[in-house]
């Protein structure tokens, strides 16, 4: 009976779901700086620390640069470290993002995705994460509060695995998810720690076994150390899949590295992540009723990119519409994800027509009919080329 009681869902925002995950993972060090819309993650974690539910050092830092610096240092002493940020905070961390992955610090960070200044916007888009994509972190997008809780747990298993040892970002949409309450099953400390026991950084700072971390590396060595990161990222791909399957066995929920929803019989796909994927799941049945047989290709694992699954899902469709919520100014396709998909299409010799769509910049509202319009665009793309990026909904 006790077991049943703890597994009943409770109402949590995605931010709170992440805080509960950090609590259940028994993180040792939390260093964070408040930034909208992430703030309530660490507010909740600080509550857990204050009321004794979580025995962690909560470091109040003066900036996000320091927040990640402290988290990296903590991870390198062998502690389980957690931080969270968004937008300008992630941008201010940028230098440390590369240092975390370069030093192979198994830090986990949640990111409530938000637009970047200027002009100042506190609202959602994905400019922050797409600016950070080449920093060598494993990046995962989640589309529900439950998936956020589950993925933070999976993230530590991935990050701390001796074959991986890379930092992991778990990203979700600011406001639309961060501040939206959903039912979430919280598994509790005991079962979560059984699934994700602490595994320390192998060269942790220890006076009895002195090591130097972060030394200068001359041209004769630097390249090989960066190549280690290339191989670690390649190795992370099967590990993410494996951890997700084991999670499914332990808790009854698994997500895969890439999800294809309503793909049976679909001739066109929309590639979307996070809240757009969740919204599309509820609206695609309407699109099918209107004759647009369009499936959803939900991007969950972004780095490393699950190319094999991507090929499997897209090899038989006639068109693929990629929704970007950030802009790569002046790029061949101005949606950064679409640009990469163009590369994947070429590399794997895939036949679909690619449609690059930019939407939702600065949380420009996408109504239900706008998503249906995207489905129509994807459908039209079967027989029509869209050589330029479509800036959906811009006034011109």
């Amino acid at each position, binding site marked *: 009976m006790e077991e049943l009681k703890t597994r009943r869902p409770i109402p949590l925002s995605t931010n709170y779901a992440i805080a509960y995950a950090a609590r259940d993972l028994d993180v040792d060090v939390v260093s964070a700086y408040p930034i909208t819309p992430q703030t309530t993650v660490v507010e909740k974690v600080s509550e857990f620390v204050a009321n004794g539910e979580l025995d962690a050092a909560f470091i109040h830092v003066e900036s996000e640069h320091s927040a990640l610096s402290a988290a990296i240092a903590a991870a390198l002493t062998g502690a389980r470290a957690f931080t969270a940020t968004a937008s300008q905070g992630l941008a201010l961390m940028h230098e440390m993002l590369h240092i975390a992955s*370069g*030093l192979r610090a198994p830090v986990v960070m949640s990111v409530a995705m938000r637009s970047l200044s200027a002009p100042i916007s506190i609202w959602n888009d994905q400019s922050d994460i797409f600016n950070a994509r080449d920093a060598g972190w494993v990046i995962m997008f989640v589309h529900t509060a439950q998936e956020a809780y589950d993925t933070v747990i999976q993230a530590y298993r991935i990050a701390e695995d001796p074959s991986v*040892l890379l930092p992991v970002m778990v990203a979700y949409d600011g406001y639309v998810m961060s501040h939206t309450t959903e039912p979430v099953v919280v598994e509790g400390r005991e079962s979560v720690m059984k699934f994700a026991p602490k595994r320390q950084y*192998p*060269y942790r700072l220890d006076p009895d076994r002195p*090591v130097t971390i972060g030394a200068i590396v001359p041209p004769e060595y630097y390249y090989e150390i960066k190549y280690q990161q290339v191989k670690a990222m390649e190795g992370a791909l099967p590990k993410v899949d494996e951890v997700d399957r084991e999670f499914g066995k332990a808790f009854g929920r698994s997500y895969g590295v890439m999800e294809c929803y309503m793909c049976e019989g679909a001739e066109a796909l929309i590639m979307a992540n996070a809240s757009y994927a969740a919204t599309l799941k509820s609206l695609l049945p309407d699109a099918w009723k209107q004759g647009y047989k369009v499936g959803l290709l939900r991007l969950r694992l972004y780095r490393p990119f699950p190319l094999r699954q991507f090929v499997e899902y897209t090899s038989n469709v006639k068109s693929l519409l990629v929704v970007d919520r950030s802009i790569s100014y002046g790029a061949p396709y101005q949606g950064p994800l679409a640009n990469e998909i163009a590369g994947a299409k070429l590399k794997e010799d895939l036949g679909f027509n690619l449609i690059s769509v930019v939407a939702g910049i600065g949380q420009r509202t996408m109504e239900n009919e706008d998503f249906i319009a995207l489905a129509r665009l994807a459908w039209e793309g079967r027989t029509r080329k869209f050589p330029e990026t479509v800036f959906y909904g811009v006034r011109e």
Partner: protein
Amino acid sequence: MSVKQLPKWNEMAIGGVIANPGNSLEYKTGDWKVLMPVIDQEKCTRCRICWYVCPDSAILELDKSYITKKGRTYKVTYDVNYDFCKGCGMCAQECPVKAIDMVPVEVA
């Protein structure tokens, strides 16, 4: 040594970690120098100033006696560890009897 003879990517500790302490001795920094100090043992008065001022601890105080042509006996001899001397010239600059010459390194 050729770059090709150095450890492969999977033979090195991850993240550039140095797991064997004190290995900076293996990294010979002396090949940077353009001028090298040469000590004239006849002029040297064994004052030890060069030993003090060397920023790389590259002046060696050897337990080796030396008798000058004029018959003076010194119990120690100063020499240079060229593996770590960067050729900065501070020893030559500070030597009160100008016993140290900075001479161009001959490149083979």
